[in-house]
């Protein structure tokens, strides 16, 4: 059991890097809430009641993740404010909702389980290494949870690709251009198109080095995870390499 001293929220004075973690957490909470909304929307288009139930469960898990991140923020004395309408997240959400509108369950899984999960899993794992104390533990635990999601969805997607590789790959490429372009732009070294509308004040990216992180590291780890997932699905490496090379920097 934690002592009362440990339970007392830290202030910014106690934790000089708190404003950086506040923005890192804001991105994480926003991502989790977007995922929760995505799963809820996915549940609405699942024909199979069991699949729909699983989607609702995933939505609940993602909401729990968001709550855990928010609580971790409180523990270091910061309020974590999310914004699912921030310009990058909004774009990602719109791409997902287009799949929902088309009743395209596979498209939804590609966006959520391959693209968004790659970024979540790789970023959380990296943050877990450098984040102090309980904050690091929260990121580590949620990264492990996300890994389970991804493993489950990979089986479905692999079967889908094996059945019709060309159709699957064409769909994946179309979604890559929409979603991965946005996610890659989120992790460019500088926000060239203006504020992301999630960071509390100025862009957090130039400050990440203070906590042994960088946008380049998070981006590299995320794209590596994405490429590994595409490899596991059986997409040709020379094709996915070209896709990655063409992403914004």
């Amino acid at each position, binding site marked *: 059991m934690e002592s009362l001293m440990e339970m007392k929220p830290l202030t910014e004075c106690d934790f000089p890097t708190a404003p950086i973690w506040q923005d890192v957490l804001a991105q994480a909470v926003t991502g989790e809430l977007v995922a929760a909304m995505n799963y809820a929307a996915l549940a609405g288009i699942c024909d199979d009641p069991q699949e729909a139930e699983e989607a609702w469960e995933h939505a609940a898990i993602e909401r729990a993740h968001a709550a855990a991140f928010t609580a971790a923020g409180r523990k270091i004395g910061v309020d974590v404010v999310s914004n699912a309408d921030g310009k990058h997240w909004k774009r990602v959400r719109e791409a997902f909702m287009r799949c929902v509108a088309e009743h395209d369950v596979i498209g939804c899984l590609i966006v959520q389980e391959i693209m968004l999960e790659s970024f979540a899993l790789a970023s959380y794992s990296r943050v877990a290494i450098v984040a102090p104390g309980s904050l690091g533990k929260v990121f580590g635990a949620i990264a492990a949870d996300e890994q389970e999601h991804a493993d489950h969805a990979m089986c479905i997607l692999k079967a889908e690709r094996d059945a019709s590789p060309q159709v699957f*790959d064409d769909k994946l490429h179309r979604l890559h251009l929409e979603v991965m372009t946005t996610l890659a732009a989120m992790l460019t070294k500088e926000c060239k198109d203006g504020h992301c509308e999630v960071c509390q004040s100025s862009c957090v990216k130039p400050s990440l080095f203070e906590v042994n992180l960088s946008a380049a590291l998070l981006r590299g780890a995320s794209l590596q995870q994405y*490429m590994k997932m595409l490899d596991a699905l059986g997409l040709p490496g020379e094709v996915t390499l*070209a896709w*990655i090379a*063409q992403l914004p920097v």
Partner: protein
Amino acid sequence: MDCPVARIAPSAAPQVDFALVGHPESWSAAAEVFSALRGPEHTPLPDDEIRDILPWIPPRAVCRVAAKSIGDAEAHGLYIDSFISPDRLDAACVRENLTRVRAAAAYAIKAGAKMVSLGGFSSILIEGNFDQLPPGHRTVFTTGNTLTVAFIVQGLEKMCAQQGRNLRQSTLLVVGATGDVGSGCVRCLAGKVRRVQLIARNVERLRRLAVELESEGIDVEIGTDLGDFSEKAGLVICAASLTSSSLLLSSIAPDAIVCDAGYPKNLSPDATTSRATIFFGGLGQITGGLTFDPDLRGILNHHPFPDVAHGCLLEGIALTLEGRFESFSRGRGAITPKLVEEIEMIAARHGIYLAPFFNGAGPVTLQ
């Protein structure tokens, strides 16, 4: 220029007879590949972005390769890049680089390649320890070093003939003499020159090689430093990359013929070496044609002549075209003149010959 990747569409897995495993020679070489893959509609990646991205890329195919024999045979394969960072090729990074080579080998096995050539540092890392590679029942590996040696020897002999040099009266210096390629070159040429000078870091290996050569009546000098020898060599093979090319060039005969067979190649002619003839060795040309999809010709094989590639990669292609799926070159100094002659004949049957002479400044013309 058309975007070389525009016509790539993921599709059912095509035939993969062979795989060539390599890595970028330099950051600028990596940047060229990325620029080509990005296509003309995207700005080229700045150097710092290349350095940020490349280390994260898992080993994977960069392009498909098709090779044609001058006979009827045709072979299809993959160029697989292990994406070892150009600045991490030193001894301190051996463990992580081995992991990358193993992953590249696993990629080749998964793709169904029957023959895999381990180019550049990939073969140095494995050096005959084929059991370090992932098991693949249908896949064999070759370092490709025997054909590399063949092209180095052919190149030196041809350049001597063109310049009217008498090999019998020449002293040959081999830098990196105890390595797989270096020792193969020594064994092929020692009996054809007046004296051999062998330089390497490992004295014990040098001594063993010297004893072997002396037992055949060959005049041998060994050293670990360029200043260790009694005379300045007129013929030089650099089978190891040099940290200081100027040091070598000031320690040899002013009109020396120098074959840069190191990897990466870093000997360049300059004002101080204007009388020496420097050419890149160990390269061959496949006259039946070599095509890449996406079209990375002149980017992956950045040479002033078409269809030129490193001997180590061409060995795998030659063996595939021949239908001889065996680990022809296994590393660890096992290259003999007999094996060199055999691979030369196999390569020649499929139109794979010594490449025209060139160096970092372009084609080499007779002085």
